[in-house]
């Protein structure tokens, strides 16, 4: 692939054509590994490195973290797997730039705190590397456009590492939809509902104290991509449909302060601090085709972690929390039917990625999806294929963060969502489950 590809080509080809435009033989054809640098080797970066090390076709020549100890641990992980010791970059917050300048990398993965995702990806693409980032990819609308424009200009991919796209149910439901079982997908709801107060206040091992900062200053859905990834695949977002506008509403903020008072005493600065992030945020997203998404975001309340996912089509519904399904006409009664057991459809519609790689995935992070995420990332890039989740997805799913903030601040006013594909959503083909292998 070359930087000579101009923007018009990229637009013409879309994400599906970026790699195809490369004249050079693919890494896979040459039998060469994908060379990856990882920026951020904390809890999440380390997990991803573990999954990468399970793949034969990967080399990790360079690692970067501001914390030398974490860096050394990650280096040891790589050498422990029988690979050469990666070079370490630890000279400060922007040392990732030196890593990106290396000439022996194909891909730079970012697993830093949120605010560094876009800067690292942009630096990587500008240095001629593909970029892949933990979620969300960006924090502002401008950053989203910067990712899109940099990717188009450089001809490099920017992949959002949305692991929820590889859940068993995500791909199962995608197969159901492609088979027409759910009819037209009208509505989906989901949420990130997970009590991470202790993570934010760093009172548990592997805490992520940087997560507290956004809760002090920001109010919206700060973490929308986990439910949005699967939903966007199901609803052909950027591929036949697109998000057009949203409204967002937050409850009052109580739980973080109460937690700090209880854990640290009422006089502690953390207990005196006011937190802007409403405890329960709810967002509605409308699409061009008249479909709808409901998102919950709640990381502050004491709660059971919920996998609230429901997708409603004109012919059927799938409910992940209940692990139940209903297809019109399949029940015993036409009126007031009962849920149908998932098992009735499990075998027929199980996705081939889980059939063929399910065994390897087992035991990997987040129930196997981290392995499948890395497997697909490496495979597509080595084969010169478009990634499953491209820069337009990264931008559209991540921009929900700043736009919900704008809506919440404006008393839930409707906020338009930019079309990062600049009209290409009309002709880009839907995600093809048969290509995800």
């Amino acid at each position, binding site marked *: 692939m070359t930087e000579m590809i101009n923007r018009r080509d990229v637009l013409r080809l879309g994400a599906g054509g970026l790699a195809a435009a490369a004249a050079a033989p693919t890494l896979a054809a040459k039998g060469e590994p994908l060379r990856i640098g990882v920026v951020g080797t904390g809890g999440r970066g380390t997990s991803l490195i573990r999954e990468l090390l399970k793949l034969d076709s990967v080399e990790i020549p360079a690692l970067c973290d501001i914390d030398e100890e974490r860096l050394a641990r990650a280096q040891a992980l790589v050498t422990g797997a029988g690979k050469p010791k990666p070079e370490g970059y630890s000279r400060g917050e922007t040392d990732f730039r030196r890593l990106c300048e290396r000439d022996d990398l194909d891909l730079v993965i970012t697993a830093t705190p949120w605010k560094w995702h876009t800067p690292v990806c942009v630096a990587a693409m500008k240095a001629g590397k593909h970029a892949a980032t933990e979620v969300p990819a960006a924090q502002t609308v401008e950053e989203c456009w910067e990712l899109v424009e940099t990717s188009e200009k450089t001809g490099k991919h920017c992949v959002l590492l949305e692991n929820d796209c590889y859940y068993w149910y995500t791909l199962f439901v995608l197969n159901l939809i492609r088979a027409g079982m759910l009819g037209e997908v009208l509505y989906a709801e989901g949420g990130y509902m997970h009590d991470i107060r202790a993570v934010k206040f760093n009172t548990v091992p592997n805490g992520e104290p940087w997560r507290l900062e956004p809760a002090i200053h920001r109010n919206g859905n700060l973490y929308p991509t986990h439910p949005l990834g699967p939903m966007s695949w199901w609803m052909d977002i950027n591929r036949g449909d697109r998000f057009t506008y949203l409204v967002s509403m937050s409850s009052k903020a109580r739980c973080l302060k109460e937690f700090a008072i209880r854990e640290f005493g009422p006089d502690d600065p953390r207990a005196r601090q006011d937190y802007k992030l409403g405890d329960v945020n709810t967002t*509605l997203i*409308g699409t061009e085709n008249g479909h709808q998404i409901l998102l919950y975001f709640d990381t502050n*309340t004491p709660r059971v972690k919920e996998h609230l996912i429901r997708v*409603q089509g004109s*012919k059927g519904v799938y409910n992940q929390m209940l692990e139940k399904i209903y297809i019109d006409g399949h029940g015993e009664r036409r009126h007031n*039917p009962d849920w149908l057991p998932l098992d009735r459809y499990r075998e027929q519609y199980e996705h081939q990625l889980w059939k063929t790689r399910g065994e390897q995935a087992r035991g990997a992070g987040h129930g196997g999806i981290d392995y499948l995420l890395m497997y697909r990332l490496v495979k597509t890039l080595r084969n010169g294929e478009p990634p499953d989740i491209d820069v337009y997805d990264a931008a559209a799913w991540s921009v929900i963060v700043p736009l919900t903030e704008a809506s919440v601040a404006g008393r*839930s006013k409707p906020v338009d969502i930019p079309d990062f594909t600049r009209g290409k959503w009309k002709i880009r083909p839907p995600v093809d489950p048969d290509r995800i292998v």
Partner: protein
Amino acid sequence: MSKMHDRRSFLKKGFGVGFAARAAGDVKPLRVGFVGVGDRGSYHMDVCLGMDSVEVPALCDINPWYLERAKRWVEEAGKPAPKLYGRGPTDFLRMVEHEELDLVVCATSWRWHAPVCIAAMKNGKHAATEVPAALTIDECWEMVETSEKMARHCVMLEQANYSRPGMQLLNMAQKGVFGELLHAAGGYVHDLRLVKYDPEREPWRLQESIDRNGCLYPTHQVGPIAWWLDINRGDRFDYLVSMSTKAVTLNEYAALYYGEKSPYATMRMAQGDVNTTLLHTAGGKTVTLYFDTNTPHPHTAEMRLQGTKGHFAGELASVYIEGRSPKPHAWEPLENYREEFDHPIWRNVDPKKFRSARGHGGGVTTPLMWQRLVDALMKGEPPDENVYDAVTWSAIAPLTERSVAEKSRPIEFPDFTRGKWKTTPRIDFS
């Protein structure tokens, strides 16, 4: 009962005191007239006929068959024969003008609820209506103003508020088990396509889907939620936003079952198949309401409640309370809290006492609601569900229609209590 109560004294008494409906020691039965005795109305009537303290002197319906059946039921219950009003859609006016009644119950199609209630109150009768109480904001205000001016109650018969788990959750919420409440959700997600295409039964239902687009049937969910969240009693809804999907399922259903040539296969339906509404309260709480009567979906209880100390999920009938549930971040059945938090009015229920005269199905919830209402009116005490509840819960439909029509724009929620929500105590059944 006197019409002399002026609005000022009513306002002063607020919700805490009922109208002195009956003199002390008065043991005369409560005289209840019914407008609309179809499926739902005849059930309400049957429940009332099961109570010794109720008489049914008058009935009104446009359908003579319903009217005769209801009359027969009254007689078979051993009560004096009722006078019948069946001369047309507005014959209820004659009934409320001519009959000596304490209460008029309205179980007509939606559009007649407010006119019947208003006419009843203007003629000195208390009113009780099926849900929703009103279809427009103007009707809501007219009901409030008529109730205040005439010093007559206007009750919306929202039986969902009296469900046993709902009342248990109310009890838990009021005792602080969930901490400070932050969020609640509820849904009317009920596939009614077959009902809508059964014009013999309820012809008006399909017409609503043809003409309107919003959360048209909010009261079953918002009723219990409003009690949990102290709405109109310490807090109030201050605005909402609402969004609807496109409408495809009613056409698809008609094409499938009635053929592609059926006019319903191509007729434009206004009501989006899935509508979702977000409500915000002055106290910073939020509510999600689902409304979906068009898509294929088993009937589920999508009630949720979230506070600063724990939460409830209706689909799982489970709760988690921090520091109290046995395992951190793990559900336990709501049932575990039954013994301690079963609501007193349920704890003391004798199911044998709560039977309609003809042994109608429908469980204990609706008879319990009726017992509460009849007791309150007999004693001259305020009913649990008052006119402000009736219109606040009902106003959601027209307000969501407006929001949907204007790209989910936030719509201000009228304060039907005119500020009294600040000083009105939370609902209390003792």
